[in-house]
């Protein structure tokens, strides 16, 4: 009987693969037997004993793989060998991974993708600086998704990057849109001529979707990381990003989004605004407008206002559309449904800037506003798990995300809190954000719906109506699309706000116990 042998020199396959390949080889049509085994003397001895030995087998050593095929004809032997070799190749390709290539080191990736000019780094913070340094040395821009990097490392990296004309976005930078491509957490928005520089993830997302909603688009969205505007870091990346957008032909208007910078940094930013030839909208939440206006910038109190002004300045709106008055009838209806004791707002938020903006709007009317991220110690919650009067919780803050995924990915902590707040008879309205887009949960509303219904049930059993107000941050092009998520919330009896700003204004109006504000 014809026998063919293939000796794969120094060829190591794991035992599971060898067994699988041997089984498949023996199932091939029209062969008598196939043996797949290491070329040890003992195995060769067995091949001799069972009549499957041919001289070529002696070429194999113990570290070589033997494929021996016996078939009724030479021709079938030849084709069977080809088929079995193909099985081996398939196995190896599967092990290497189909589709995109993966590179285990930065150096390897740089070598294989020479056209790349940006690295996204997401490794534990203590190692991120090392990788970022390697990237800058390779003349690459850096987006640092990693957090827990020392401020000294951040300063050092940004200084080197600045000297080399490179951007270091971060650390703790989760959002960017460059060349129309969303990076990490970002929304699918139209390309346009509004450029954003932000030390704020969800704040920049909110401005980008507001601009999209107004018919505009985004040229670039550059994140700087939350500490960039601190005194120590000095706003290096915000300034460099503003200059980059100033030189970018696709950008007509620049929008800055952040908490108010340190005083020394604010002076630098204002000087840059003055020097910039393009209009700059400044949305420093909680900041003051005078200095911005004096520098020739355009101050926006809220993210909605920032988007509106950007559209006006880019010529898309002839005038700033007056802020739509709140729906008075709606407000009366909701107030009428709440008991006299239901006085407080509880904001349960995934986005830090969203939490900030809602807090700001509430604080314009109420003094007793507390949060886990309040800068003022008097309004900072002593126990982040215990709400107090008007409370706004940022579940994305470090204290909630240590060792846990971000609430945009894992909503379980927020859901637990929702049910606790629902049982509090002093709560009139609960405000929640649902953030869509790349990197977010595949169905943020769906995964929370049961808890929303349960929360309303808990309140109902206590003889109360509980108003749940939601804001869905996203566009119709995100997956899932915004309208689909809104539809689910409406079906569950949830009130919908059109923007973060709108949510803040509605929430504070719902619980007001005097005449309409």
């Amino acid at each position, binding site marked *: 009987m014809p026998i063919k042998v293939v000796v794969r020199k120094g060829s190591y396959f794991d035992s599971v693969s060898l067994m699988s390949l041997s089984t498949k080889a023996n199932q091939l049509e029209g062969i008598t037997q196939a043996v797949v085994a290491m070329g*040890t003397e003992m195995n060769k001895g067995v091949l001799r004993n069972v009549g499957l030995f041919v001289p070529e087998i002696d070429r194999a050593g113990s570290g070589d793989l033997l494929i021996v095929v016996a078939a009724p004809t030479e021709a079938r032997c030849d084709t069977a060998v080809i088929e079995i070799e193909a099985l081996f190749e398939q196995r190896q390709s599967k092990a290497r991974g189909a589709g995109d290539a*993966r590179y285990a080191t930065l150096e390897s990736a740089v070598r294989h993708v020479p056209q790349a000019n940006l690295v996204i780094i997401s490794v534990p913070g203590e190692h991120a600086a090392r990788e970022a340094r390697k990237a800058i040395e390779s003349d690459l821009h850096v987006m640092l998704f990693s957090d827990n990097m020392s401020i000294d490392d951040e300063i050092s990296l940004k200084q080197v990057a600045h000297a080399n004309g490179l951007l270091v976005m971060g650390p703790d930078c989760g959002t960017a849109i460059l060349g129309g491509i969303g990076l990490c957490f970002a929304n699918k928005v139209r390309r346009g001529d509004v450029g954003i520089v932000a030390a704020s993830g969800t704040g920049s997302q909110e401005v980008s979707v507001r601009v999209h909603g107004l018919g505009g688009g985004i040229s670039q969205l550059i994140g700087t990381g939350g500490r960039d505007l601190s005194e120590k870091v000095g706003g290096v990346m915000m300034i460099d990003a503003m200059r980059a957008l100033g030189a970018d032909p696709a950008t007509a208007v620049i929008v800055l989004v952040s908490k108010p910078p340190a005083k020394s940094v604010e002076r630098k930013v204002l000087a840059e605004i003055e020097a910039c030839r393009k209009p700059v909208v400044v949305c420093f939440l909680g900041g003051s407008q005078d200095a911005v206006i004096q520098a020739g910038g355009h101050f926006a109190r809220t993210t909605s206002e920032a988007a509106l002004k950007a559209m006006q300045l880019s010529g898309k709106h002839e005038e700033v559309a007056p802020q739509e008055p709140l729906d008075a009838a709606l407000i009366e209806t909701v107030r009428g449904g709440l008991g006299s004791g239901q006085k407080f707002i509880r904001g349960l938020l995934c986005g830090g800037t969203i939490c900030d903006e809602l807090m700001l709007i509430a604080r314009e009317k109420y003094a007793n506003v507390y949060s886990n991220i309040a800068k003022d110690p008097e309004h900072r919650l002593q126990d982040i798990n215990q709400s107090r009067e008007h409370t706004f919780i940022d579940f994305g803050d470090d204290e909630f995300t240590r060792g846990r995924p971000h609430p945009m990915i894992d909503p379980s902590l927020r859901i637990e809190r929702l049910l606790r707040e629902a049982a509090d008879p002093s709560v009139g309205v609960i405000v929640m954000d649902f953030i869509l887009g790349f990197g977010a949960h595949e169905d943020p509303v769906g995964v929370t719906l049961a808890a929303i219904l349960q929360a309303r049930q808990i309140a109902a059993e206590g003889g109360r109506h509980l108003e749940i107000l939601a804001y869905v941050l996203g566009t119709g092009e995100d997956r899932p699309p915004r309208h689909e998520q809104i539809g689910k919330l409406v079906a569950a009896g949830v009130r919908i706000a059109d923007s973060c700003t709108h949510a803040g204004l509605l929430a504070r109006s719902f619980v007001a116990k005097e005449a309409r504000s």
Partner: protein
Amino acid sequence: MHSVFDKAINIGDARGELFTLASRGVGNGPNTLVVDGMGFGATDIAAGDAVNGDGRALDVGSRLTVLLANAQTWVGAVLIYPGSDDPVPANVEYLRGILDQHGRPGGMVEEGGRTGDFARVVTALLKDRAALLVDALQRADFHGAGRHARSMIGLGPGLTPSGDDFLVGLLAVLHVADHPCRAWLVPVAAAIAQAGTSTNDISFAALSMAAVGRVREAITALVGDVMHGTRQGVAEAAHRVLAIGSTSGTDVVTGVLAAFESLVSIGSIPGLAFKSSARR
């Protein structure tokens, strides 16, 4: 770089000793560094890549850097043979039942149904030679035992041939401190020392380590549970070993059982006799 698999890569030094980087889930073992996260199958690492290290990091062909700062040393448990045989006889019987029910055929365990001549003959040879080895050990025929042990090395299917895995299991038990038959180590270890190129580098590395009492943590745990543990402990430990490779785990368990069951010859565990694996 000696060889690359999805869950492990092997590095050979100038003396030919192998060291393994394993992804989590493979478990601790001799000369093995367990690394966080990824498997290796989709990396660019290839046999022949240079590997350099400075104590702080291991650089593999400039394709992978392993940071060693937080590495923790694993020390295998030292097992001591129980003073009293309880619960050993019952646990050995129980382990035999697990092997009969869950052992994977193709190596030491016969394959049922349609099977080729090679597979059938290999299994028959493995069982015969294992029985001859144990018989020789029981009769203190160390010369014969060495010969039969040598005849098992390199025999059988798999990356680590079944005969090699059987010997690893056998050695794991014989190395237990205060084992009444520790002298049986001598001919088996000598056979391995003379094995030379009788088997491939990877299997030889495992055999060499087993010859000096160093085996994977899962195997040590099984031996420990048979000597001192509960039925549930034995079952859990057995399934962890059975899950190794394709037939490797089964072949190791067969070796473990052979060592325990052969103690009947010196009356250490009355009531047991070495049995070949049941036909499936």
